[in-house]
Each structure stands twice: as structure tokens, then as C-alpha cells.
């Protein structure tokens, strides 16, 4: 695992300027994705997972700004790229799948046209070659009757099929990284499993890295090699998937795992983490989780914890682990 990182987020800070004030959506996020690896970014809504991904694609809304930090992709600082260089990265080296398959495809263009676009743009295919390749891609993502589907409009397809089309678009230029932003959240449970299977299969065939954003720990257990847990715009814990599940270090991760239903076990009530997610408008200077933490200590309300690294490379931002080796 000492391979060179494909993506490296270094102390990323992204802020939104709203009427209510400055929202620090991401403050000081650092982690890596190695080639061919699946990294799951887990967290509640508003924890900054999507913003982190969109910062990498530089597709943030107009009122957002990356104020600090670096994002290195394949040896280049993404944030310093010129617009045309950025365009060559998007769709070509990084493919992206969004949460809402119902609205992510253009309603007035055929799916074939939409798959062909990046191929023609980045791979210089002729229209006819691109169409042939688009049909192959539709078959590859497991949609039957690809010859007919290529001329269909998005509204003629089901949600699961549309998400497969999105996957076909993301994979069309054989990228090095695929970002999947909650790709299964809007789908039925049975379809979810199919889409995840497809992603896993294609990922191993094409040997692409996958940055999978989710709040579903079941998805994490099934897909991830490595887990990054985010809370209040910061990474609170990261480590290999087995380690995080077996031995969570951060009280927040522990709470998340406790709140997960286990099949075959009946409980009156599922565990919930007490309290509310802090407002992203004015996050405290101390640990964001301190107000909900069952193990809270005086130091937790004074200072934001440093990141501590275990002997096996497991990282956690929590004062409980201060006696461990300092980062």
C-alpha cells in the first residue's frame, strides 16, 4: 500500500458565501486515494462529503470558493489548472456519477447522444465510431436491447437504467478515477444492489479508483477498501475498512455503527446519537462532536483535536487517543 497516491487532498478548505453568512463546508480535509482503490467517504448530510468531491471536479456553485489547500491528481495540482486543462480532466480522467438519476440526464437529448459527447470531445472519435462504442458501453452496463436504447430519451428509462447510463458515461473515456456521489440513494433497494454490483465489477475490470460518497454503512462494508469518516466539514477518522468496522476509534464512528440495524437481531429501538448536527454557519472552534459525545472531556471543549495515527496507520481526530503516537 505504499503506492503513490492518485488523488491527494491536502488541507482543503471550501467555503460558501450565503446571505446568512460564510458556511465553512469543508475545513482542512486531507486524505488520499491510491490507484485502483475504493475509498468510501461517509458522513451525514452537510458533513462536506459532496463538496469535497465537487472541489476536486471544480464544479462548485458560483458562491463557493476553495480558500485554502491543494488537491493533487496524478501529479498535478487541480486547483491551479487552467480551464481548458480542467476540462480535459473532467469526463476524461475523472468520471462522475451523481445522486439523482432522474434529473442528471438531459431530457431533450437521447441517451446515445449523451454517452457519445465525452467520447467525441476527449477521444476524437468520429460520430459513427462513437455511436458504435456507445452501444458497446450500454451493453457493458448490463442494459439489454442496446441498439434501441441508444436512441431512447431518458424519460423512457427507469431510474436504475438511467443510473446505468450515467455509469456508462462516467466510464466512457476510461478514467483513472470515478467519483460516485451517493449513486444508489435515490434507487430501490433491489436496484441498489445491482448498481453496486455493476460498479464493483466494472471497477475491477477496468482497474479504476473509486471515490464512493455515501451515508449508508452497508454500502461501505460491501464496497470499500478504505473509509474516510467526515463530520462537520472535517475528517474525524480514516482507516482500512475492516479496522474501522471492527475497532472504531472515534466516538462518532462508534455511534454510527451502533445505529446500524443488524439482521437477525431484534431491538425495541435502534440506537441514535443524541443531539443535532451542528449548524455549519458557526462551527465551534473545539471538537464539533463534543456536544454529542458520550466520552466528552474538558479538553474537548477547548481545542480542536489533532490527528493521531496508530501503529497500523489508522488516523483519528479525537482527544481520547492523544496518548497514541502524534501525527
Amino acid at each position, binding site marked *: 500500500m505504499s503506492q503513490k497516491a492518485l488523488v491527494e487532498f491536502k488541507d482543503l478548505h471550501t467555503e460558501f458565501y450565503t446571505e446568512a453568512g460564510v458556511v465553512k463546508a469543508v475545513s482542512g480535509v486531507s486524505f488520499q486515494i491510491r490507484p485502483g482503490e475504493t475509498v468510501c467517504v461517509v458522513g451525514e448530510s452537510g458533513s462536506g462529503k459532496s463538496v469535497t468531491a465537487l472541489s476536486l471536479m471544480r*464544479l462548485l456553485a458560483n458562491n463557493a470558493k476553495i480558500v485554502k489547500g491543494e488537491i493533487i491528481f496524478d501529479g498535478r495540482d487541480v486547483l491551479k489548472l487552467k480551464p481548458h486543462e480542467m476540462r480535459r480532466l473532467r*469526463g476524461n480522467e475523472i468520471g462522475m456519477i*451523481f445522486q*439523482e438519476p432522474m434529473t442528471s440526464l438531459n431530457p*431533450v*437529448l437521447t441517451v446515445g447522444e449523451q454517452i457519445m*459527447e465525452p467520447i467525441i*470531445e476527449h477521444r476524437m472519435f468520429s460520430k459513427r465510431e462513437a455511436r458504435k462504442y456507445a452501444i458497446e458501453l450500454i451493453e457493458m452496463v448490463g442494459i439489454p436491447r442496446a441498439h434501441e436504447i441508444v436512441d431512447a*430519451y431518458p424519460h423512457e428509462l427507469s431510474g436504475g437504467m438511467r443510473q446505468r447510463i450515467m455509469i456508462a458515461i462516467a466510464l466512457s473515456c476510461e478514467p483513472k478515477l470515478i467519483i460516485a456521489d451517493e449513486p444508489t440513494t435515490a434507487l430501490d433497494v433491489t436496484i441498489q444492489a445491482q448498481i453496486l454490483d455493476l460498479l464493483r465489477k466494472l471497477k475491477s475490470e477496468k482497474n479504476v479508483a473509486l471515490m464512493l460518497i455515501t451515508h449508508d454503512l452497508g454500502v461501505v462494508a460491501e464496497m470499500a477498501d478504505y473509509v474516510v469518516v467526515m463530520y462537520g466539514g472535517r475528517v474525524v477518522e480514516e482507516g482500512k475498512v475492516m479496522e474501522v468496522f471492527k475497532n472504531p476509534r472515534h466516538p462518532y464512528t462508534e455511534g454510527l455503527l451502533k445505529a446500524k440495524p443488524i439482521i437477525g437481531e431484534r431491538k425495541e429501538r435502534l440506537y441514535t446519537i443524541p443531539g443535532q448536527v451542528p449548524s455549519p454557519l458557526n462551527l465551534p472552534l473545539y471538537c464539533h462532536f463534543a456536544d454529542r459525545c458520550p466520552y466528552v472531556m474538558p479538553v474537548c471543549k477547548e481545542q480542536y483535536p489533532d490527528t493521531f495515527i496508530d501503529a497500523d496507520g489508522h488516523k483519528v481526530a479525537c482527544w481520547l487517543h492523544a496518548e497514541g503516537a502524534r501525527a
Partner: protein
Amino acid sequence: MTQYIIRRLIESIPTIIGASIIIFLVFTMAPGDFISAQFGMDSKMTQEKKEELRELYGLNKPLPERYAIWMGEIVKGNFGESYLYKKPVTDVINTFVWNSFILSATVLVLQWMAAALVGIVAAIKQYTLYDQLVTLFVFLAMSLPSFFLGLLLLKLFAVDYRIFPLGGMSSTGIPHEGWAYIKDVMWHMALPVITLTMLSIGGLTRYFRTSMLEVIRQDYVRTAYAKGLKDHVVIFKHALRNALLPLITLFALELPGLFSGAIITERIFNWPGIGKVTLDAIFQRDYPLVMGFTLFISVLTILGNILADVLYGVADPRVRHR
């Protein structure tokens, strides 16, 4: 598709009949008629003479009968004879409507092109100085009354700096032919076209801007950017095609406007258009002309609606007609 259009055309017949009844009632039940408008002030006209004239024009028959006669003739293609011009209504309309049409058609083209350009750029550059200046200018032009704007332009460009003529449609006394005539008409058209374009561009610009702003925030536009497409491809292929959908209805409903003339502007620039003619006809109670023309415009409105639905089906695969 053809079947759909035919069905819609047949379905519109009751609407047209309804419209004709309303038009007939509104005009005939208004106080006064052609005779009182022409001779009401004439002391030499005796009551008997007036009644005789009413008899001659068929104005003394009961309403249902008059309606039946009017409609019966229209079905045969005869809109009656204009009292004022002593010519068939269709001839009168045909003489003047095309003068209005070239004016309105030019305005329509200019207005839509300019509004599209200005509105789209304003949407992309939302809240920038450009956007705010455009908004200011557009509202300014929109809120000026047509008589004021028209007279202002006349004073500036026809009186002070004699670039454009004072009025009319062609120069009197100099008979032009072919190209020279077209150039002469275009020269006369300039000021009324500018006036009408400035008045109408405001609303449309806002429509373009709003529609574009709504579409730019959609997920599929983000998808298009995420595919690494060039900005102009994203804007014109992905965003604009969707932004135009709600504007199709607006565009098709311009159809009657192309033929209805601009009453005030035509008057200021002394343009021999249908707007001026119908206004005179209303004052003079020239029923056959006014009713015929109003019916013509209502048929165009209905056709415009059908056109809007057909175009919508062509442009949006989700409502495509079978």
C-alpha cells in the same frame, strides 16, 4: 402528427363559433351604429331617411337573424363590404395588413434575437454589472409609453438630425421601383421598428433570463460540465435547448400579433397599417370591417395555440405526439 393537427383543427371549430358570437354581440350591442356615426350630427337627415338607410344596410333586423346572415356569408368566404371603403372587407384587410405585417415581422425577428442574446448573457453573468445595466436599460425601455418614445425618436432622428423620414411608408413624389423601393421602405421603417422593438424587448429579455437561470441550475447541466464539455456546448446545446421550451408557447402566440398592427405607433409614424384602419373603423362603426378583422385575429390566436402545442411536441421528446 398530421392526424394530431387535423384533430386539433376540427376541435377548434366550436371555439371559433363561440368567438364569432361574442364578437358579434360586443360590436352590435355597443350603442350607436354606422348611420348614427355618419349622420348623427347632420340636421338635414330626417328620422325616416335614417331608417331607410338602416333598412338598406340590414341594421334593423333582429340580432339572431343578423348574426345568421353574417356567419352564413363568412362560411361562403364573404366577409361583407366595408361601409367606409365601399370595398369587400377582405380587400381592405389585404391592402393594409401586409404593411403592418412587414413592420411586426421585422420587430419580431429583431426582438427575439436581441432578447435571446441579452437574456442568456445576463443569466450566465447573473448579478454582475452587465446584468444590472441590462436590467436597468430593459426596464427603462419597457416602461416608456409608445407615444413618448416614438415622438422622442422622431424629434431626435427626423427633426434635429434628419437621418430618418418623419413618417409614411415611402417617399411621395419619387416613384421607386424594385430595389430602390425596398430600400426606401426600409428607411421609412427604421424609426417605428426601433420604437416597437425597444418597447417589447424588455419582457422577453426577462423571460429568457429567468428561463435560462432556472435551467443552468439543473443537475443535467452539471453533468454536462462533469463530462468535460466546452462551455458553449453546455450553454447552447444542453441549457438553451431546455430553456427554450417554455418560450415556444410565447413565440407561437406572437402569430396574431404579426397581423394585428400597432395602433399608436402606426399613428405616430403615419404608417398605413391595419392598426390605424381598424381604429378608424371602430370610431365610424364600420361593423363588417371591425368584426371581420377581429374574427380573423381570433382565428389566428387559435391557430397560434395549436402551433404552440405542435412545436412543443417537436422540441420536447416528453410530450411528443403520436
